């Protein structure tokens, strides 16, 4: 059963990346994708919370937890909005990799703020993250030189040709 859940995690996390591309392919507006992704997930998680801990314990929570969650949710929301916008200019293969590489940031912050041990493996992986980002930037730069029309539009969180 443990491997079933492992497979579920793998397919779901991959499926999320694929659906970001599908949304772009289907000309979904980035602001709408961002808004309804968080809204649906919020409603689903409320259902899970109620079924796990019951209505009474659902509302008894330290305010600091909610404050941290709301701020981090805000950052996540900006991330999804800019990712969806970036997909209009770039590829899902590279964009999704960069989003996944962002796990380096909480690791760095943990080292700086909580004085966690760095270690050789972590130091090496940070170096690889930087090299990877530089190579992806270089790939994109070459793509823009060869196909400048891809870079014409500006970011828009606004109504477009698909209405709103």
């Amino acid at each position, binding site marked *: 059963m*443990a491997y079933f*859940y*492992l497979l579920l*995690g*793998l*397919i*779901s*996390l*991959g*499926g*999320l*990346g*694929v*659906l970001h591309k599908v*949304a772009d*392919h289907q000309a*979904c*507006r980035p*602001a*709408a*994708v*961002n*808004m309804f*992704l*968080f*809204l*649906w*997930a919020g409603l689903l*998680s409320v259902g899970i919370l109620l079924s796990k801990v019951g209505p009474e314990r659902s509302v008894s929570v330290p305010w600091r*937890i909610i404050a*941290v*969650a709301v701020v*981090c*949710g805000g*950052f*996540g929301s900006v*991330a*999804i909005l*800019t*990712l969806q916008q970036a997909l209009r200019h770039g590829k*899902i*293969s590279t964009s999704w*990799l*960069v*989003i*996944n590489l962002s*796990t380096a940031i*909480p690791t760095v912050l943990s080292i700086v703020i909580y004085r966690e041990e760095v270690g050789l493996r*972590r130091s*090496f992986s*940070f170096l690889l*993250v930087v090299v990877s*980002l530089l*190579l992806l930037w270089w790939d994109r730069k070459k793509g823009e030189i060869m196909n400048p029309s891809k870079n014409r539009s*500006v*970011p828009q*969180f606004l*109504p477009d040709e*698909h209405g*709103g």
Partner: protein
Amino acid sequence: MWFRLILIAFITNGLGAFGLRILAGMGFADRYEFHYLVGLYLGGAAVAGLAYFLNNRRPMRRELVVTAGMAGCSILGQIGMMMALQRGLPGFVVFPVCVGGGMLLVLGTAVVFFHERLSAAGYLGIAIGFVSLILLAFP
């Protein structure tokens, strides 16, 4: 333009993920994880609502359908990893397999169905990024 946008996404996504570490630092990680998820998603929806309602009104049906699938994947991904860990699989198996495997799934789909092609630098960047992802995913 892509690089600027994806760099913002890289930083903000990383900052958003740091919340779980703050929660652990407060000593609440194992007691309020579902409360945290609700706050995270609804907080994100509130910020997303500002950007959306600024210039948009009615959603399109395909936006509602695709995002419902994304939300389902997001939550099932978390539950899948959590349950696999609770059923005895070690973290050094669960995190690299789910994160790395999910990444490969996206790459495969991008190449096969969306016909994405990269330069040699791009493929090398993905290979190096994939290795660093696996290294970072180890607990």
